[in-house]
């Protein structure tokens, strides 16, 4: 009789202990995934080296002033049309004279492809709100992603985000580079 009692440990309270721990982790856990727009900052400028000259037709100027108004290519712009304008600038579908030149490059996996020389230049004021800045960055990122998607569907039959082949991803990236340049900060427009 005594032997039998020794052989069985009462596991009834095990569930309670586990519940206690479970509730602790349930309360402390945070399930939020961080999302954001990833950008690469340029290295600091060397004051002795002159920046290379860029032709006027290859630059797409965006200015944001301290009251969050946009100036796109010298005219007043709107956040709603910015994406289309950026797309047209970067792709230059009809090879217009006032839009960027193209540079025929040999790209592995794509063959020869005319890569646009266009650069989007973004300049903001110290008084610009962060929200507006992110909206503009977002529209530009969307424009580039749409162009990449179009090329990817045309060449490989699927969206850029769905590509899994390293060479194909690299090829698309080379064909449509993320050419957003942020101007050196200046206090324009005062605040």
């Amino acid at each position: 009789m005594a032997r039998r009692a020794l052989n069985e440990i009462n596991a009834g309270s095990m569930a309670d202990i586990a519940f206690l721990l479970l509730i602790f982790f349930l309360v402390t856990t945070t399930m939020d995934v961080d999302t954001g727009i990833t950008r690469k900052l340029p290295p600091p400028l060397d004051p002795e080296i002159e920046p290379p000259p860029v032709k006027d037709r290859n630059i797409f100027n965006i200015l944001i002033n301290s009251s969050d108004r946009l100036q796109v290519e010298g005219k007043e712009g709107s956040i709603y049309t910015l994406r289309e304008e950026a797309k047209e600038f970067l792709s230059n579908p009809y090879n217009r004279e006032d839009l960027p030149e193209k540079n025929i490059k040999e790209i592995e996996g794509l063959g020869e492809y005319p890569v646009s020389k266009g650069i989007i230049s973004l300049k903001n004021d110290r008084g610009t709100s962060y929200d507006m800045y992110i909206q503009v960055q977002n529209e530009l990122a969307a424009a580039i992603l749409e162009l990449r998607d179009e090329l990817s569907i045309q060449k490989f039959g699927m969206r850029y985000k769905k590509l899994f082949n390293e060479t194909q991803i690299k090829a698309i990236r080379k064909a449509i580079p993320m050419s957003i340049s942020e101007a050196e900060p200046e206090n324009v427009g005062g605040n």
Partner: protein
Amino acid sequence: MARFTKKQSKGSPGINTASLPDIIFMLLFFFMVTTVMRETTLFVKISPPMATEAQKLEKKSLVSYIYIGPPMKVQFGTESRIQLNDRFATVDDIQEFIASERESHDEADKKFLTTSLKVDKNTKMGVVTDVKQELRQVGAFKVNYSTLKKSKKQ
């Protein structure tokens, strides 16, 4: 035959709860593995802007966070301030912060270090620009502007 009738008259037996701890343990391990303890207490209010092109931030252990936003307590003012780790900081502290973040990682991981800027949407770009200039100086080029994902209108 008499045996069967006898058994039925006993009524339904209790449910066996022996496997209950196992189920609970399974849940427990799931939460233990997925849980991320919050490392810093926020002193600044941050409501991130929305963006449609937001991407997931991978490898959380390689990310250092810079918080910029208006302080929670009114006595610290209403202007946006920078928070590094557990205290308020100025722009000049950023270089030191990034250097110490680099120290705490392996040599191999150093080039994957990302700085996540968690900035309140009403912040003026002046502070953010200063922070970005400091990051450029110190060579931390990979930045991530923290945003919430907004679904696309199509």
